[in-house]
């Protein structure tokens, strides 16, 4: 609508900064680490695009707006590469304790926001036409931040050998749930034809539940190994 509206949308992305500032990352000077994590995000996305373009038949013209279950499963199976990307970040970027995970999640989420929402916000929210979609997308980015932090935690837990054996399947299930969220969550929202606002609320709820479970497991392990 106006530059002011654009400002409003960007203000909604402030939780990213809060996370950086108040989680102690700023004290470690972890800025470059976040940028590196972002670079790994870009690298992962490029690889994913290459795979998608090479091996998957994309039929975007025929089913525009329709929710195609099979296509979504295929696409989500490629999203497993995201997990590899996270694993790469966790193994490559040095860090201590909690900050390592937050660096990975925050760097990843920030890169995603800038690359996938940046142009849309700049071009759309500044334009004359008003639409709620920009505010919605920014709120959704907040949910995604939580989700990416959760994913980083889960991956870290998954790679640990000293994790309680009984918890291993739970972590794997949570990971699978996170990766295939595109199928089951979006599919459910589509079938129930839930409005955009309630969809964000449901996504936030799902992210909070998964996040809480991961936090619970993580807290236990962290206390065990003493970080």
């Amino acid at each position, binding site marked *: 609508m106006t530059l*002011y509206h654009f400002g409003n949308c960007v203000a909604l992305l402030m*939780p990213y900064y809060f996370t950086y500032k108040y989680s102690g990352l700023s004290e470690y000077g972890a800025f470059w680490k976040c940028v590196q994590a972002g670079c790994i995000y870009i690298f992962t996305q490029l690889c994913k695009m290459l795979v998608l373009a090479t091996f998957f038949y994309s039929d975007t013209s025929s089913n525009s707006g329709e929710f195609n279950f099979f296509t979504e499963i295929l696409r989500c199976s490629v999203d497993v590469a995201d997990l590899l990307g996270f694993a790469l970040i966790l193994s490559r970027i040095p860090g201590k304790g909690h900050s390592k995970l937050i660096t990975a999640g925050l760097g990843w989420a920030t890169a995603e926001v800038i690359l996938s929402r940046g142009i849309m916000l700049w071009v759309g929210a500044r334009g004359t036409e008003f639409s709620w979609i920009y505010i919605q997308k920014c709120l959704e980015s907040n949910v995604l931040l939580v989700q990416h932090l959760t994913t980083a935690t889960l991956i870290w837990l998954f790679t640990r050998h000293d994790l309680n054996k009984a918890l291993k399947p739970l972590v794997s299930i949570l990971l699978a749930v996170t990766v295939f969220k595109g199928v089951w969550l979006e599919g459910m929202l589509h079938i129930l034809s839930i409005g955009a606002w309630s969809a964000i609320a449901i996504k936030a709820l799902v992210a909070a539940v998964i996040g809480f479970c991961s936090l619970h497991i993580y807290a236990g392990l962290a206390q065990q190994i003493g970080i």
Partner: protein
Amino acid sequence: MLNDADNFADIFRGGLPYYLLITLPILIFCSPCLASEFQVMSMIKFDVNGEHFGSRSSAISLEAKSLYTWNTGRHCVLARLLDISVSDLNEIRQKAGGLIVMLPKDVQALADDVKDHVLMLEQQMLQQSIPVPVYFAHFNKELEHIINDITYTAIDNDTKNKTAASQLLLSVSANGYHVTVDGQNSAANKNSKVPVIQGEFLPNQLPLKHMENTVEGSLPLILITASLKTFGIINDYPLNADAAVLMSLIEVFSKLHSMISTAPKYRIGFLLSDSGMLLNFQGSKKWLEMDDNMSLQNVEFVLCLDTITQSLTNNQPNVLYLHVSKPPKEKTSISQFFKLLKSVAGHHAENITVEGVHKKINLADLKLSWEHERFSMKRYPAFTLSSVKAPGSPFRTTMFRDNEAHIVQQTITAVKIIAETLACYMYKIDTLSEVFSGDAVISEANILPYLGVKSILQNNDIKDGFEKYLKNVKIIYDKPDAREPDFMFYNGIDAKLNVYRVKPAIFDLFLTIAISLYLSTVYLAIQFFPNFYGVVSTNSNDSIGNFFRNSQNALKRK
């Protein structure tokens, strides 16, 4: 992020500033386009005799308002044609910032009084200069929806008396629309010209030899004229039935002329120009001023055709009016023709009556009412045949038209009556006899090829038709004088209308407040996260351990 200054300085040490130099302009020029886009037609703009007509400006970038809510020059009125009244139009003309009119879906289907209203409004718009930009859009569901939206929110606002708080809430949640039309200001077309085409049937040479005392030039001349309308309220082509009548008259009389036995003792001249009433019959004016036109001696009469077929059906009686500038005396050619026309119409066509109308020429008025006045002023006996009675009838300039079948039928009848009357007049035969029957019958085939003609210059259709049957065919052009142009056209380009949905500025303020509330919640949540984490971590080992121990126990029990 002041404490990260070192990190940021690292970024700017590299090549980033140069990249920014490239990307920033690109970002700034990235203009969004998510709006609904409509094709609109700009209102016509032209000058005649130094007077300006039509919409004089073209660009709009204003807030859209309905017919009932606009109040300043910063509002652009968005309305249906049927909702606008003449007084509305006058008010908009003086105060509003612009007008966008959606045409009705189907003009034919409207009731008669509504049609009259549409025609009257159209004529009203054409008769004056409108300083604000005016655009016309075809019927469109999306645009209809937008018009409904702005109309109904307005009505809600007005009717219910609300408290200040709810008013404020309403003003925050209200949907606004911003309209832009990227119309370039149309420049005067320096090449404006009005083509005029003339032609005549030369009498057959053979019978002339038998009449020793006749010379070619002294044969009496019957001149038939018509004008082609090349524009109406928008830059489109109205129905040109008069030209079709003229062309079919040429065709049917060429058959009579080609045979020696039936060649009349008259010369018949034809004149067709691209200038109708809106252009003050500039074409015939120019033609009369020329020296080398068809020798205008011994003129029997000049027959002008004007709106011989009404393009929109109306429940008016089917009358053919013969307009003259002074009442014809007995035994003059015009009164003779009038009598013949009356009796022919009575015999050959059902329910068509002929009436004479007399209107004096107002010499003080620069604008003439009828084409025959141009000839009458030069003392040629002239009259106009028309289906409309009043010179100010909106049918003469309307853009709206009926279905083809009805028009064709009416036009054929008109051609039939005129042709029979002319034949009776020239051969001095009884009105009961039918000349154009059998082989020479007048049918759709005579009319249809010329009904869609748009201009004399278009595809040379008219020129070819003239040259096929007539002699002395000549096209002359009337060009406006460079200093004092009699008429001027403007280049009109159909523009695009963009309608953006916008929110009032106060809405953004509210949004800012809501967002800051949300952010402070997030801030607090992050501040209290360590406490939360502490609670979780103390509970976690025990509870998870307990949970799994319990579940394993449960499994064992099973």
